[in-house]
């Protein structure tokens, strides 16, 4: 009898509160743009913050309000951009995915004036000390970027970070982690891109004193391929708006002639490049 009564009372109470909440929901309804929810559904929901917003939901809101571009999600890439654009009813222009490159190619044995450092083993810590290696611009090699990567796409190889472009999503966490601003996101128009792997702004003599491979600012590349290369100061720079990732005759010549060893290809080797490499390897082993 008690149980029956209890059930009846609770049922009645539930009914009352359900009605109350139902009415309140109608009165206090917030008119939210339904597109926010739709866009949120097509986003990767990794909440990595690579877009610059607090999470996927924030980004979705910003896109609808026009504060973020529809291809602003670096992780989702072109597919997500197309989905978002379809919801918003606009066309998306195909853009190249942004991927990180490292502006220091010096291996451990290339760096000069390295002194033992026994402080906190982070780049931020070593950067404050400042004298752990002679080059004040180069990679410190204490893996702050590797730790920042949530996609396991960065690894320390021979004293410098190497990006695994199969795993990289271009979220930019490593860019923020580097205390020397050596990592930059560039548009990968091809699967592999030419990179100036040096950031030393000193003159040729100073560079030679601290690094075996650093850019000496000889302006040779600018002379051979003025469309692609610029040397504004003592360091070469590649104009990624004009550089298409194609290996033109001029670029080949520059690669041949460059006295430093800082023009490196980053990214996945394309199929034809891979074949070329294999052929070269076969030729050398035959000799």
């Amino acid at each position, binding site marked *: 009898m008690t149980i029956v009564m209890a059930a009846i*009372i609770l049922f009645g109470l539930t009914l009352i509160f359900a009605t109350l909440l139902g009415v*309140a*929901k109608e009165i206090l309804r917030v008119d939210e743009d339904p597109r926010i929810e739709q866009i949120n559904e097509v986003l990767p929901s990794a909440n990595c913050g690579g877009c610059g917003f607090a999470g996927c939901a924030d980004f979705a809101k910003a896109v609808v309000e026009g504060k973020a571009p529809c291809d602003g999600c670096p992780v989702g890439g072109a597919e997500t951009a197309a989905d978002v654009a379809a919801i918003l009813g606009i066309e998306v222009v195909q853009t190249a995915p942004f991927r990180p490159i490292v502006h220091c190619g010096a291996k451990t044995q290339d760096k000069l004036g390295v002194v033992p450092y026994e402080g906190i083993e982070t780049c931020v810590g070593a950067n404050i000390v400042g004298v752990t290696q002679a080059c004040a611009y180069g990679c410190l090699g204490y893996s702050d970027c590797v730790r920042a990567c949530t996609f396991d796409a960065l690894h320390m190889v021979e004293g410098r970070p190497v990006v695994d472009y199969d795993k990289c999503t271009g979220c930019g966490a490593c860019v923020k982690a580097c205390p020397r601003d050596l990592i930059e996101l560039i548009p990968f128009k091809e699967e592999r891109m030419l990179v100036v792997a040096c950031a030393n702004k000193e003159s040729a003599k100073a560079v030679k004193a601290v690094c075996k491979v650093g850019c000496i600012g000889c302006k040779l590349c600018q002379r051979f391929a003025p469309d692609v290369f610029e040397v504004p100061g003592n360091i070469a720079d590649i104009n990624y708006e004009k550089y298409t990732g194609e290996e033109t005759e001029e670029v080949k010549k520059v690669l041949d002639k460059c006295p430093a060893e800082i023009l490196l290809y980053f990214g996945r080797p394309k199929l034809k490049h891979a074949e070329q490499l294999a052929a070269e390897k076969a030729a050398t082993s035959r000799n």
Partner: protein
Amino acid sequence: MEISFATMIGIFISVVLVNNLVFQGFLGICPFLGVSRKIDMAFGMGCAVTFVITMAGAITWCIMHLILEPIAGRMFDDPKALNFLQYVAFIMVIASMVQLVEMYLRKCFPPLYTALGVFLPLITTNCAILGACLYIYMKPETQPFLNALIYAFGGGLGFMLAISIMAGIREHIRFSNVPKPFQGAGITLLVAGILALAFTGFTGIGK
């Protein structure tokens, strides 16, 4: 229990300072430690809890005195026969009130809504609210409706006071040189304990 102005003042001071739900009852510790990082957020949380606790106190009083007790008294000759229902019923009332507050805040104060975030729905499981509602039924002096309302409102204010003081102290702790073993949760719990100790100084005021 007579309804007099003096009793009401006594109940109010008692629940805000002397028998503070957080410091003397050890209720609502989760939001007390979780949302006390910034003082404006702590105050917002305190306001939300005060509103929910007052509404829930009033409604649960009605449920106990107007529904459960009369029905039980008439059908089983024992007004306390259905008292086991109070837990389920009270939690339902609190959950509904939280939903209501959430909808209201989202409509009228979106910044506060986003600032409170996940802690707003978590008020549902804030034991200070359920505790206050159960105390109201247990204590002889809160049997009249007005006294119960004052007890509930005071309980909310006490929570707001506690969490605001805590947030103020924690804002200062962030800039102070805390010994390494005490950093983080350690110093927070120490401060909470010392605060509770300080509040025992009010013991003896009123009843």
